[in-house]
């Protein structure tokens, strides 16, 4: 009767949890940990002499040589193979038992094909329309990045435990490398996304009649949602990737999270010490400085999300900073789609942007940047772009890991000059790790991570506001970051303390279900006879037939006994035993002596001898040769051969008692 959560994913910002609630198995998010790609060599779009000349790795004693699979660069070892991802744990539970997957935002669905394809999964995925559309674009981009640079070699020897143990640096510490997988195909993406059912904010979705789930705006990205998972009596809130800052999405719906029994908290900011507004300012000033000095600016980024805010910020900044003639390029196979899609989701935007479409004007100013030719977008570096490419310029392109996508080309192209700058805005990857295979590097590097998700201060404020009974969160949030162990402000401090979970852990959620909703049919409700048992409290006995269908319970009046055919009636009247199992109600109260005697008298029973006992009285009905034992908590009628008398006495006793 209780709920249970378990955790196939390990990354607190790319969650993947499973909740079992009222016999429904719900996967919360389907995040893909892509930090594994940092162990791989970048995939260049055009042949890179530098990368191809990197020396192969041989152990110091020369005993182990994996020259083909591993390359050394600036003291680090990288796997020379198509980059691989770390999908959510699949051994922990049978994926075919998952009923539904709830997606909170487009960054948290990237592992979907690993879960829904070739696993026996038959459930439904719920997501908002922007989440689906932009999630599709991001997956499409990922597949495109991988497939356009085919790599014949697939390195596997290094994964051997005995060998991995001998490797230097970060590769040695990489965990569960055997579970790492290559990127899915477009076909798998399409199949996975065909399982998505669209939902809108505040839409109540019934799951099997047992549970209701509702997405709420989380304020983080277009269509991003928190989820309420509830029955009539229990409420679990799943808060994942929420933001209280005013950026482009609809503001976070906080009030609907109130009265939660359990609040599952994930997807907090990865950079709790950085203020997004300050970072935005630094981004602009570094960009302007580089351009003025004649250098180029490279912004490794995802194709949707913060880039909309960056472009909006630049829209206001370009003229004041005198960058009017500097070309801005956005290069991605899905650049055009991303920019177009951002303009058609007015319902999902903040008030300010929403009201623009009433004019009607496009909600994002990047439409104007494109119209005035200040911003140009291309599907890739080949084709039109190579003809129109002018320097110095600003390039937005992916992938932020610097391991694949067009960004690899620009790193190779601009890395050697100190005039150029790479500005990291995405918080998902350590910029030092991202840059490692490009060392030594002359290019300037600026780290301006912009993560608008909740910080610990905002979380504390939020929780104070919505007051959940219990908070469940990844264990990382319950202690300060390992590198800043003195910062107790960078953790969750709550009373009662939050219940932490870690990858592959199973957690019982702290509530017991005690009630269920049932409907009394109107005919039954009308037939009830309530009696007031205490001031303000009435009771009625209910005898009814339970009907349960699709987890919905209904009580109907009991069927009327079928009339016995008249011909047989007389003969069999006594032999017909009473209907099976029709117990009478429980009784409560006491039978007071004097009023009872008066009642007996009224019914013609006058010869009563009363004998006191330690617990009450014994009444001898002398003429009838019958005994009645009256006590505080019980009445015993001993009556041998006079059935009508027994029935009369029973009914007289019952007059003093309450039925329950």
């Amino acid at each position, binding site marked *: 009767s209780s709920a249970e959560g378990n955790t196939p994913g390990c990354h607190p910002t790319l969650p993947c949890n499973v909740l079992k609630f009222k016999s429904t198995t719900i996967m919360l998010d389907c995040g893909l940990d892509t930090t594994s790609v940092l162990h791989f060599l970048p995939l260049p779009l055009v042949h890179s002499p530098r990368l191809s000349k990197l020396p192969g790795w041989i152990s110091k004693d020369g005993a182990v040589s994996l020259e083909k699979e591993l390359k050394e660069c600036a003291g680090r070892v990288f796997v020379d193979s198509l980059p691989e991802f770390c999908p959510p744990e699949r051994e922990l539970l049978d994926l075919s038992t998952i009923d539904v997957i709830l997606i909170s935002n487009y960054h948290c669905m990237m592992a979907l094909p690993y879960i829904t394809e070739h696993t026996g999964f038959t459930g439904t995925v719920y997501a908002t329309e922007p989440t689906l559309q932009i999630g599709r674009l991001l997956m499409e981009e990922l597949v495109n990045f991988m497939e356009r640079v085919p790599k014949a070699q697939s390195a596997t020897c290094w994964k051997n435990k005995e060998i991995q143990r001998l490797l230097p640096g970060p590769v040695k510490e990489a965990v569960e490398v055997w579970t790492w997988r290559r990127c899915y195909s477009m076909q798998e993406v399409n199949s996975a996304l065909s399982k998505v059912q669209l939902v809108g904010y505040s839409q109540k979705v019934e799951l099997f009649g047992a549970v209701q789930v509702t997405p709420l705006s989380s304020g983080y990205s277009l269509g991003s949602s928190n989820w309420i998972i509830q029955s009539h009596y229990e409420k679990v809130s799943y808060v994942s990737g929420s933001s209280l800052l005013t950026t482009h999405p609809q503001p976070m719906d906080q009030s609907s999270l109130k009265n939660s029994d359990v609040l599952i908290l994930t997807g907090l900011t990865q950079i709790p010490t950085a203020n997004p507004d300050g970072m935005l300012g630094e981004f602009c000033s570094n960009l302007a400085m580089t351009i003025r000095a004649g250098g180029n600016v490279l912004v490794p980024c995802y194709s949707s999300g913060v880039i909309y805010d960056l472009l909006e910020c630049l829209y206001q900044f370009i003229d004041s900073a005198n960058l009017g003639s500097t070309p801005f390029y956005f290069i991605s196979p899905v650049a055009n789609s991303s920019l177009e899609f951002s303009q058609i989701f007015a319902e999902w935007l903040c008030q300010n942007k929403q009201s623009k479409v009433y004019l009607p004007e496009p909600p994002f100013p990047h439409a104007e940047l494109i119209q005035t030719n200040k911003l140009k977008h291309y599907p890739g570096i080949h084709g039109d772009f190579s003809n129109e490419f002018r320097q110095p310029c600003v390039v937005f392109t992916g992938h932020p890991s610097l391991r694949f996508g067009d960004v690899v080309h620009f790193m190779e192209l601009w890395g050697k000059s100190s005039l150029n700058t790479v500005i990291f805005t995405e918080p998902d990857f350590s910029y030092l790790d991202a840059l490692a295979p490009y060392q030594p590097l002359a290019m300037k590097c600026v780290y301006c991570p912009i993560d608008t998700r909740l910080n610990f201060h905002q979380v504390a404020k939020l929780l104070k506001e919505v007051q959940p009974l219990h908070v469940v969160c990844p264990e990382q949030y319950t202690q300060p970051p390992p590198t800043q162990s003195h910062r107790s402000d960078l953790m969750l401090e709550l009373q009662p303390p939050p219940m932490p979970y870690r990858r592959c852990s199973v957690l019982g959620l702290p509530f017991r279900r005690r*009630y269920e909703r049932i409907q009394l049919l109107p005919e039954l409700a009308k037939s009830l006879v309530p009696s007031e048992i205490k001031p303000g409290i009435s009771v009625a006995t209910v005898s009814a037939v339970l009907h349960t269908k699709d987890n919905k319970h209904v009580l109907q009046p009991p069927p009327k006994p079928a009339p016995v055919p008249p011909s047989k009636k007389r003969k069999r009247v006594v032999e017909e035993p009473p209907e099976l199992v029709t117990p009478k109600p429980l009784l409560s109260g006491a039978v007071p002596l004097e009023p009872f005697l008066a009642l007996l008298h009224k019914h013609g029973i006058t010869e009563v001898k009363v004998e006191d006992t330690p617990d009450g009285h014994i009444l001898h009905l002398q003429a009838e040769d019958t005994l009645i034992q009256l006590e505080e908590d019980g009445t015993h009628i001993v009556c041998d051969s006079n059935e009508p008398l027994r029935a009369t006495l029973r009914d007289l006793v019952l007059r003093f008692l309450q039925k329950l």
Partner: protein
Amino acid sequence: MPEIKVTPLGAGQDVGRSCILVSIGGKNIMLDCGMHMGYNDDRRFPDFSYITQNGRLTEFLDCVIISHFHLDHCGALPYMSEMVGYDGPIYMTHPTKAICPILLEDFRKITVDKKGETNFFTSQMIKDCMKKVVPLNLHQTVQVDDELEIKAYYAGHVLGAAMVQIKVGSESVVYTGDYNMTPDRHLGAAWIDKCRPDILISESTYATTIRDSKRCRERDFLKKVHETVERGGKVLIPVFALGRAQELCILLETFWERMNLKAPIYFSTGLTEKANHYYKLFITWTNQKIRKTFVQRNMFEFKHIKAFDRSYADNPGPMVVFATPGMLHAGQSLQIFKKWAGNEKNMVIMPGYCVQGTVGHKLLSGQKKLEMEGRTTLEVKLQVEYMSFSAHADAKGIMQLIRMAEPRNVMLVHGEAKKMEFLKDKIEQEFTGISCFMPANGETTTIPTNPSVPVDISLNLLKREAAFGGPLPDPKKPRTMHGTLIMKDSSLRLVSPEQALKELDLNEHQLRFTCRVQLQDPYSDTDTLSRVYNHLKSVLKGYTVQHLPDGTVMVESIVLKVSSSAEDPNTKVVLLSWSYQDEDLGSFLSSLLRKGLPP
């Protein structure tokens, strides 16, 4: 007895000034607030004095819901909210919220600036009215207050058109507004889930029509336009700026491209470009195909269709002009019509329904001489074609929606009485058990509802019952469950009687019966006991009858003992003892044994 009351103030056995009042669970809702195109006097707006004779409507209405931006559904809104007085929430979808004020302003301009009427709502009133609007998203459950919730469904009639479900507790009403059950070139089909409302209030514009296939109508339309243009004639298509216009533009645009035609196509008024822009920004409200391809090619960027200038009407040679408004009752379409009506080479195509009293209606009823303002008559020589492109459900579509939603009752509005009659019969024939209503304006229909009572049942009791029932309970032998309903304040909880005693801190009173039955049975005590056992076993089929080793017989929970009488060993005494809970069985057993054992 709880009930739902529905009163149309407009659109009762009529098309125009849609306005329907619903009372449900103590809440009052106004559905649509339209104007009538056929009248220029008081009858133009719904009669709000029905709600209250004096003062403002705010305290009488919990909310107002507008289904779509057509003026016969929202044209009276500023009058109602700003001149009669209403400050509560007005719900409509985003596209409706965007487009509605533009059409209202247009309407105001024609009425006040052109016709010189006074005592009409002002631009400022339109703005103030729109400030009261709360946008509605599809499928979002909006809680108007703690009890009243509303939910919008896609209606496919025009951009942003919605059907709405209104719910209080377990009682609900669905209002369709105008809807279309077949996807067209720019919109998708209406859809609703099996929400089983107490009443479905449906439009019935095309109650008697079963329309031929859309493709045929489109081909027909293109052929007529093409022929007229070929012979050098001019084609006038009166439309409303948003809606059908976009569908027909897409149709002509693709046809012109395919046939490489050169004759100009114009779209009147400055609204066009703006209108198309709305379609681009609200592309998520269009049909699947347009949504899927909008990144590559936006269907609402027309190459062949240009903005119209008043002077073009006198240009020689063929042309096609889309002009507003759609019923030729005023404005540019009427001006162009007057210019072109005298030439039999020209053609006017009416693509939608025309309300009685409009020039459009007169044309469609075959009038060849029209009386115009200023006592002039206009002779109609041009060809008049009617082509139903307005996106209303036809009879088939209405039946389809009823099948989808499974309502308990249907009410027809927004149609002509005679046609409604026909459809009403058809509905009542096809759906047994569904009553169909078609009230006139001001006539109240009362529908008793029979809501079931939600109760909190203790999980222990429910599980105990479910365990008895097994996974597949036998429907022929339903098991009766027993519980105690505790009513305290407004909470209703059903618990087991034991739990009720405990919770209410009540003692249990045990009522017991003991009965000694004498039998003449010349056997040993043990044999008599066996004979009692066999007898009961044969009579009490389906009961648990046990012969226990301690020398007793147990029937369910009732214990029987046998002993010999002290005086006569052949007289046996059977001792029975049972509690009140087993009264029926105990009473039966004692009577049964008194009659003796079979030989």
